[in-house]
């Protein structure tokens, strides 16, 4: 534990007459095993989480640090894993999301095994591919229902109640693609608190109170700031939530009486950086997760063989970045404030490499996963999902600001589809449903499947070369090996170019002159980049870059590579004694 961790952050409650009363803010769990997908048990003994090595649901004893598996995967369940979880009022049962054998998330319930006991077989409470993403948020005070977020195939999110003993789910409220990041029951179980956009199209959120029978909804916490992650406090009725109303993200508390706010919100802990609230125990200890670190854009000089920041005197915090064909402008995807469980908020920006002017792109998409410049530099292809229930690739016209879908796969996730331009910008290549290699002439509307892989294989990263329009793509085969293949447009025949000796293929790019391939592989050791001759005969490793992120690309002049690198870590912290005075 570092010195920083050993120093407790002491916050004075910002309330007159409470000088000398202090809440303590401190870390309780740090290290590489931390994830913030779980919640504390009401009795404060356990913290649920996902065991990264196995994907099992596990609990950590917050007193001793000992861990215990709650689920036990069989060999046949490889590829399945636990995700969000929340404790029942008894501090024994846990409801959790499980990525199942059919490739969607279902809702399950199990209980903590006794020491030495084999994990119990969980009970499936809800399993519906139409609502294939579920997030259990809270149990009702009587433990009879699990307040759950459903995310449906039509990109509608729903606040729903799922009986913990099994039975039909009851949707309370449907919202659009801006799903609540946190929900909780009131102490009496008659209401549900959640966060959502303050108004249609806004990024900022407010906190709402919804009657459990759906009869009424009120806005509990409102204002120009971003207020989210509401959790009910039972010691005295109120809601803790995250807000940046002070100028920085902190934890605030709003008293509630008769389902209405009483007085102004009170600051409990400020300037916490990127964090998300996890739970409040019966004793009033507030648990939250913090994300540290991030990624920035970096450049690899192919001649010198060295990595450096992309821009010499400025760190560009970004997830993905790519330089325009004329070399003048960087387009990149950056994280925005408003931490989230699985997927952080993102926005797209342009940055002039000479001069440093930047501007935000008003791309109306729900999720941004990747971006590609069009060869003529007038458009940007965004990979992700839009606000209209479509997942795939979208073409954004820089002049008109219009975004239109160009490759849509109803069965893709919000990460969209893997797509790229032909060097002349006339065609789009993309993968549909993991098995079909699609070509779309951008002047037409129809897609054509030019190659279909066999069952058990997966197609990846189609990329057309500037030389002879050769199409390189990856084929991950049933034996786990990935082969890069070349398709000759004149014959339509594909042949193997080379097989990766190890790792997964996480990226592929032709050099601008088509002379070589940039191959990106991922393994337990991290990401590596390779230069591969166009005949596939030589594969040369590029100097390692620590914590490299996927998505490297060539600069337009072919002399360097652009990528993002950086590491993020998660920690679990607590705020203790925040309510000592409030309780009285």
């Amino acid at each position, binding site marked *: 534990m570092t010195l920083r961790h050993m120093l407790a952050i002491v916050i004075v409650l910002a309330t007159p007459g409470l000088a000398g009363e202090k809440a303590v803010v401190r870390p309780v769990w740090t290290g590489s095993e931390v994830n913030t997908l779980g919640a504390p048990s009401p009795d404060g003994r356990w913290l649920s989480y996902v065991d990264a090595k196995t994907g099992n649901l596990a609990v950590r004893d917050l007193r001793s640090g000992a861990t215990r598996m709650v689920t036990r995967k069989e060999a046949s369940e490889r590829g399945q894993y636990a995700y969000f979880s929340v404790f029942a009022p008894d501090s024994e049962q846990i409801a959790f999301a499980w990525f199942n054998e059919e490739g969607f998330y279902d809702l399950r319930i199990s209980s903590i095994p006794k020491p030495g006991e084999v994990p119990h077989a969980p009970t499936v409470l809800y399993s519906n591919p139409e609502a294939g993403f579920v997030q259990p948020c809270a149990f009702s005070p009587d433990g009879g229902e699990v307040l759950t977020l459903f995310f449906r195939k*039509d990109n509608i999110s729903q606040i729903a109640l799922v009986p913990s003993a099994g039975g039909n789910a009851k*949707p309370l409220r*449907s919202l659009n693609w801006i799903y609540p990041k946190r929900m909780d029951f009131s102490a009496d179980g008659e209401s549900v608190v959640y966060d959502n956009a303050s108004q249609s199209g806004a990024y900022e959120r407010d906190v709402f109170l919804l009657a459990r029978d759906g009869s009424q*909804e009120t806005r509990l916490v409102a204002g120009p700031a971003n207020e989210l992650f509401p959790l009910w406090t039972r010691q005295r009725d109120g809601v803790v939530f995250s807000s940046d109303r002070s100028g920085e993200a902190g934890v605030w508390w709003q008293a509630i009486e008769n389902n209405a706010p009483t007085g102004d919100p009170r600051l409990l802990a400020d300037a916490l950086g990127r964090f998300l609230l996890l739970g409040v125990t019966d004793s009033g200890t507030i648990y939250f997760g913090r994300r540290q670190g991030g990624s920035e854009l970096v450049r690899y000089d192919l001649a010198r063989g060295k990595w450096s920041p992309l821009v010499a005197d400025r760190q560009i915090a970004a997830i993905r970045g790519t330089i325009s064909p004329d070399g003048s402008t960087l387009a990149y995807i950056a994280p925005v404030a408003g931490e989230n469980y699985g997927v952080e908020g993102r926005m797209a920006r342009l940055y002039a490499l000479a001069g440093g002017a930047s501007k935000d792109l008003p791309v109306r998409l729900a999720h941004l996963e990747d971006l590609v410049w069009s060869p003529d530099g007038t458009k940007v292809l965004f990979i992700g999902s839009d606000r*209209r*229930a479509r997942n795939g690739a979208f073409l954004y016209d820089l002049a008109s600001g219009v975004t*239109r879908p160009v490759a849509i796969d109803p069965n893709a996730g919000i990460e969209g589809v893997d797509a790229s331009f032909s060097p002349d910008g006339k065609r789009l290549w993309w993968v549909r449903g993991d098995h079909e290699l699609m070509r779309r002439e951008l002047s037409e*509307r129809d897609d054509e499947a030019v190659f279909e892989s066999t069952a058990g294989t997966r197609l990846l990263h189609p990329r057309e070369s500037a030389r002879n329009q050769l199409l390189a793509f990856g084929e991950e085969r049933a034996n786990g090996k990935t082969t890069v293949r070349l398709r000759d447009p004149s014959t339509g025949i594909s042949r193997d170019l080379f097989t990766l000796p190890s790792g997964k293929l996480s990226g592929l790019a032709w050099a601008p002159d088509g002379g070589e391939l940039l191959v990106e592989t991922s393994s337990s050791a991290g990401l590596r980049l390779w230069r591969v001759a166009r005949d596939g005969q030589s594969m040369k490793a590029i100097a390692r870059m620590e914590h490299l992120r996927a998505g490297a690309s060539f600069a337009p002049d072919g002399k360097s590579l652009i990528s993002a690198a950086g590491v993020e870590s998660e920690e679990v912290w607590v705020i203790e004694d925040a309510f000592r005075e409030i309780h009285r």
Partner: protein
Amino acid sequence: MPSAKSIASVLGVGGVLLTTFAWAAPLEVPLGLDAYMPIPADNPWTAEKAALGRRLFFDPILSEDGTVSCATCHDPQLGFTDREPVAVGIGGQRGTRRTPRLINRGYGRLFFWDGRAASLEQQVLKPIDNPIEMALRVEDAVDRVQADPTYVEEFQRALGGRPSEEALAMALATYVRGIVSGDSPYDRYVAGDRSALSPSARNGLELFRGKAACVVCHLGPNLTDEEFHNTGVGLGDGETADLGRAKVTGREADRGAFKTPTLREVASTGPYMHDGSLETLEDVIEFYDEGGKPNANLDVEMQPLELSDTEKADLVAFLKALSGSVTDGSE
């Protein structure tokens, strides 16, 4: 079950029968709809108000010559619409727009094809004093209701006061909120019953969400985004074309844009579009397959779809699967 018109005639004679109506309370919604309906805090749903609103809905005294009630155009037997391409009001006068389906409007955001009413309370009174619909000044409608002691008693019981313009609106809006449709095969499929849709309807759902891109506007439990789009329907000579939303906003960009209607019960509630110009579901699909009708304000989402005949049939099968049960909350 007696038709709406026969019920209306009974109500006109035996008002005392109303007191025996039993209403489901609280407002229950069928499978597929949210428990939460945005009901204004100053007009909460009650069984008594809904019963009063129902009586008013079917009562032709709200029209100038006593021949037209709300139910005349919004016929419960026809999915709370009618079969006319455009509404036909008092004296057989024809309007310019199709009678909207009054289904699940409690979840609505703006009302009428052009969204000129911001609430149901605002919307319900407008047809009464529209000269080509019911042609009765609202204050005169109130006078007529006040002249009926049974109405006076019901208003007192349901709303705590005498009949007034505001009370009239509250009662009618409450009744309309109780008109709900759900529990369709689609709803059962989305709830997890994978056998609820036929293979053709399942293909149609995939198309609806994918290639046909219907979900771009028809999304959510009520299959509408409650927004306004120009699909090129009803283009006239430019001078007489219905301005649509632009008539309300004054914005040229809204010219020819109309509100996305719900698709629930769509199979039984033709003809279609705001002007009733498309007779069948097949006609509608052909219209969208062609990419709508080009005009200066055509929605950017309108593109030719190049659907095969099988795909078109599958879409029709899916649209038919949106028919479920329609109730108005009465037992």
